[in-house]
């Protein structure tokens, strides 16, 4: 009797274990920072890839926020066990480029003899992530800040159903909406440094930092405390005092102010479109990031979001799998599906054309907004930012913005302090990287 039970158990175990062993796939690890609806979408994309072929199994792992992904990848790299692919945000670009720990994507694809039409990627994306004309990381989730507005609040204030085009209109509309009881505050801004400075400067063709925003050298200094920066931040501070603007914290923390109807407008990444479509309980639409109008030129905004970096330190045989996954992501079909599902912009001309042909943007105008801001040919001021330890600079800037919005410092004093602190960080990075 016992023997029988044993035999059955052994057979059962063999049945369970057997198939997985015979199919042993090469694992490709992929660390990312996508949570919530975006995380589900990444998992779906990875699943599609895993089903599309039999040799490789991509394991996607959400390692927290972007800085946490970076720190985790660094720790793993130092222990000689890095993930194959790491999703890193825009501001981590310089750190990754100078790390010596990455396998440039253009080189990987060349080695694996996978032809990719790099020219098909849109300019603001290739501009941000290329060095000497070659892409170093695979464009994946690119977004740009846009304006979201609550149509119900606009209607209540008797405003036409169109977004404010200029900052002047943002102020006027806000005051009307508050007076009419449409909302408690006019607008709020997520990712304050990214939306209000890092993008607002190139959008007006203003330099953010010396050395063409850090592209041409390491001895870079911030330029945000000039006339334009003081004017813009000063206006926000004045509006904060009047209740037109309501500061809501860093990162995506201010979103609830818009979601629950407290603020009639929100400036936030286009990446939240997918989430908003599911969760917002009122009619809403989008508009371009507001502009100050003349005398400033309307240029382009820059891309935020992330790209996929391939890390060194793996068996050469794994490279093929990594390259295949990268090719899979760059295909128009995946590009389109990813951007339609999330609100990130499609990053290749082909994907954009295909979407246009299907009248996608006519039916979903909110998904055109960010792309429309990225269409101009970038100038040296609007190619992107290449600053070392940008995460820390951003934090220094946001700390000072809080002092300004709290009325503790004037816009000029706050921005001066942010520049001084930012320049220290840049100097430290240059010293640590140049050796």
């Amino acid at each position: 009797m016992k023997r029988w039970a044993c035999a059955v158990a052994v057979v059962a175990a063999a049945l369970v274990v057997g198939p997985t062993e015979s199919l042993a796939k090469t694992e490709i690890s992929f660390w990312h920072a996508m949570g919530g609806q975006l995380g589900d979408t990444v998992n779906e994309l990875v699943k599609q890839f895993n089903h599309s072929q039999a040799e490789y199994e991509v394991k996607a792992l959400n390692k927290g926020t972007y800085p946490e992904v970076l720190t985790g990848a660094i720790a793993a790299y130092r222990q000689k066990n890095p993930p194959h692919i790491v999703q890193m945000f825009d501001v981590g670009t310089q750190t990754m480029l100078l790390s010596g720990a990455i396998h440039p994507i253009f080189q990987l694809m060349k080695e694996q003899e996978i032809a990719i039409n790099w020219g098909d990627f849109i300019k603001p994306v290739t501009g941000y992530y290329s060095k000497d004309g070659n892409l170093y990381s695979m464009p994946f989730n690119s977004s740009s800040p846009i304006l979201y507005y609550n149509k119900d609040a606009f209607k209540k204030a008797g405003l036409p159903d169109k977004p404010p085009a200029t900052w002047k209109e943002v102020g006027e509309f806000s005051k009307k909406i508050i007076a009419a009881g449409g909302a408690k505050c006019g607008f709020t801004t997520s990712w304050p440094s990214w939306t209000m400075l890092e993008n607002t400067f190139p959008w007006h063709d203003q330099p953010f930092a010396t050395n063409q925003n850090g592209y041409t050298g390491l001895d870079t200094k911030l330029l945000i405390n000039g006339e334009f920066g003081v004017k813009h931040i000063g206006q926000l501070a004045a509006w904060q005092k009047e209740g037109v603007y309501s500061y809501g914290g860093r990162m995506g923390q201010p979103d609830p102010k818009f979601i629950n109807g407290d603020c009639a407008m929100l400036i936030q990444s286009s990446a939240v479109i997918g989430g908003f479509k599911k969760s917002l309980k009122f009619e809403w639409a989008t508009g371009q990031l507001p502009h100050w109008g003349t005398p400033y030129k309307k240029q382009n905004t820059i891309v935020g979001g992330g790209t996929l970096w391939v890390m060194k330190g793996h068996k050469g045989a794994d490279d093929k799998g990594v390259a295949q996954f990268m090719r899979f992501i760059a295909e128009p079909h995946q590009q389109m599906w990813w951007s339609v599902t999330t609100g990130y912009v499609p990053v290749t001309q082909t994907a954009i054309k295909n979407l246009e042909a299907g009248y996608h943007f006519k039916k979903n105008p909110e998904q055109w907004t960010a792309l429309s801001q990225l269409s101009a040919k970038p100038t040296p001021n609007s190619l992107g930012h290449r600053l070392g330890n940008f995460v820390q600079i951003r934090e220094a800037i946001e700390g000072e913005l809080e002092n300004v919005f709290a009325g503790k410092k004037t816009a000029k004093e706050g921005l001066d302090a942010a520049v001084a602190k930012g320049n220290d960080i840049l100097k430290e990075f240059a010293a640590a990287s140049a050796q």
Partner: protein
Amino acid sequence: MKRAVFPNRLLPYLLVLPQIAVTGVFFFWPALESVRLSVFRTSPFGDKSFFVGLENFRKLLTSSEYYSSIVNSFLFAFGVTAIGLGAGLLVAALATQKIRGLAAYRTAVLWPYGIAPPIAGIIFLFIFHPSYGALPYWLSFVTSYEFNWLLKGWVAMALVIVATAWTHVGYNIAFFLAGLLAIPASVLEAASVDGAGAIRRFRSIIFPLLSPITFYLLVVNLIFSFFGSFGVIHAVTQGGPGRATEIMVFKVYNDGLIGLNLGSSAAQSVLLMLVVIALTAIQFRFVEKRVTYS
């Protein structure tokens, strides 16, 4: 107490070895590594590293930001300790009353200690966040005062102090409760018979008898607030607004893990270690004299 005598001379060393090994690997080794890192400048990925002497320390000691983080740390530590000890003693005293369902109350007051600090931070966010918290929402019905710690530094500081003290109060309660229960009822009864009121009894009998525990908790709470109080601040304010809640240990994390400036971060942790060693030494030198061990 009976002195233990070991037949084998090696055995006692062998018995303490595991503890020494744990302390060595998890405390002394990292501490020494911090000291080593603090005199280097290291690139984010650690591929380039070179000796800079005391440069990291010089930079810190000439930066006003660093001094403000020291001030914040002391404010925070004394706030957390005062509230934690005060509330702990009060609740422990209440939990010695003869009431129905005492065991349930005693269990309940220890609960917060079982909650991980980041979770506590999230709970406080849901109650106090100006955008989606319950309290600011209710407040908006009764007053026009805007409870916005996103821009008011001292409100943010008060919030993280209360939240941190709350996470730690269960620990204090447990010790105070044990201390209170160890005080012989006969002594208190005798004092009552002699006409001592509740306040007099507390001052002359309970407090002196509790003093070893109070002293222990004082030291532990201060060390905890300086070193281990990172979770709540990380979850609630991230050191903001401005730098109003950036305490030393948060700056160590932020400059090291977010800013990837490992040299400065290590130098800060060395300085933080010195501050805490000094504080503890001072306490043993001066405060302990007033402690009565029975």
